[in-house]
């Protein structure tokens, strides 16, 4: 069902502060329209002449249909309600099906109209608060970086919606993540070393983390890490770190003349990674 809220959202709040606009599409729902009719004809909300209001309401509806306006179902439901109330008011006689013959059939509608009106008024009061608040200017967010010394990690307020959204994002990302072409469990360390060396340069630094950018699994990270250790041991790379917390930069070394890659001194075969159920580091020898 089409909602009437969309075209309405472009309106300024001020538009309801003055007279109700006569353009029909401005009534967000049937309650708004009814309140408008009551106000326009200066009717007593506690004693609504239901026949008059129903007629007026239906005239508006006809006009809306004539103008091909997207008529929300709520308007039709209200029309049915009004007709129902009217029929009950027009037949003043003891109704055997009614529990409380004294009840005014308009009462429930009046209660809803009042409540709706009160929330419209509350919205206006809130809007005033908002205007008052917007006259107070805080310290600009742009200055956060110099106050904090560094850009602080952005944080989000958490609720069930953000939790669900976060989980969905994780799942979407996991789905989109390309499968590593070679299952890392089967990727020999020397293959990984060749891959990494191809990416490294003698002059341009590569961040340590960047070496891991193309692996998605724990096993792939372990192979990469072992490959880096191996490259350091074999003097194929140079590694620098500025201070204790600075980024680690990796450069390729010039290939030493006498240091064939697959040297006999391979990774020790008993090197195992704790806690890894997916991967065991293999000796390069066994692969050769």
């Amino acid at each position, binding site marked *: 069902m089409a*909602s*009437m*809220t*969309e075209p*309405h*959202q*472009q*309106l*300024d*709040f001020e*538009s*309801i502060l003055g007279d109700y606009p006569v353009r029909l599409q401005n009534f*967000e*729902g*049937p*309650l*708004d329209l009814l309140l408008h009719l*009551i*106000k326009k004809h200066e009717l*007593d*909300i*506690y004693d609504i002449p239901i026949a008059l209001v129903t007629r007026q309401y239906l005239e508006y509806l006809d006009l809306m249909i004539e103008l091909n306006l997207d008529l*929300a179902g*709520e308007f039709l439901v*209200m029309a049915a309600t009004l007709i129902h109330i009217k029929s009950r008011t027009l037949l003043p006689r003891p109704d055997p099906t009614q529990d409380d013959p004294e009840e005014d059939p308009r009462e429930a509608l009046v209660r*809803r109209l*009042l*409540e*709706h*009106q*009160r*929330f*419209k*008024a*509350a*919205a*206006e*009061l*809130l*809007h005033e*608060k*908002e205007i*008052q*608040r*917007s*006259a*107070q*200017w*805080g*310290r600009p*967010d742009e200055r*956060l970086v110099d*106050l*904090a010394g560094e850009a*602080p990690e952005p944080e989000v*307020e958490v*609720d*069930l*919606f*953000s939790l669900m959204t976060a989980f969905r994002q994780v799942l979407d990302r996991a789905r989109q993540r390309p499968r590593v072409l070679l299952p890392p469990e089967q990727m020999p360390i020397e293959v990984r070393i060749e891959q990494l060396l191809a990416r490294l340069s003698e002059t341009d630094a590569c961040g340590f983390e960047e070496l891991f950018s193309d692996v998605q699994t724990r096993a792939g990270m372990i192979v990469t890490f072992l490959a880096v250790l191996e490259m350091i041991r074999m003097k194929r790379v140079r590694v620098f770190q500025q201070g204790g917390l600075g980024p680690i930069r990796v450069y390729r070394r010039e290939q030493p003349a006498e240091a064939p890659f697959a040297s006999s001194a391979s990774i020790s075969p008993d090197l195992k990674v704790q806690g890894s159920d997916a991967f065991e580091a293999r000796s390069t020898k066994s692969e050769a």
Partner: protein
Amino acid sequence: MDLKAIIEALIFASPDPITVKALAKLLDPETKEDIQAAIDALKTDYDRPGGLQLVEVAGGYQIVTRPELHEWVRRLFHERTTQKLSVAALETLAVVAYKQPITAPEIAEIRGVNAAGVVSTLIERKLVKIVGRKQVVGRPFLYGTTREFLERFGLNDLSDLPKVEDMSELLGFDLPTSVSEPAPQTELPFGSGEVH
């Protein structure tokens, strides 16, 4: 150390209004009482004429420019970065604020129109959040307002919401006393009888 000076610096630097609780955690082992006393002294300092003031908002403290200088400060900026709320959004927000926790069908009942679209807009704008699920069949989500809501409207907490008494002049007609009476503290100032 000068507790008041430290607190002033922290209030100034904090990205959000900072609470006494958060200050107490940062300033351990200072007591909350000492911190509150320092804040009160700081408040007195800010009562001097000047361009700035110390306000209490969203349960915390914040240093902001004085509202009467708004026109001058506004000249610094080409336009406000905060987006305006539509009437529908503002009215729905009012329903959520006064009736929270409330479900989407209950909001629709009060407003007379489907509420899902507007509620999702309000969630996106971080003014409304899911606060739980109603323990009825279907377990619909319950919505409430966020800290950002309080901040945007300059409210310290929900008891700061405009009272229903203040509204009579805005209404075209008087409210029956039965619905305008402030409800007990568990309810919000507005809570009339149940919708159902």
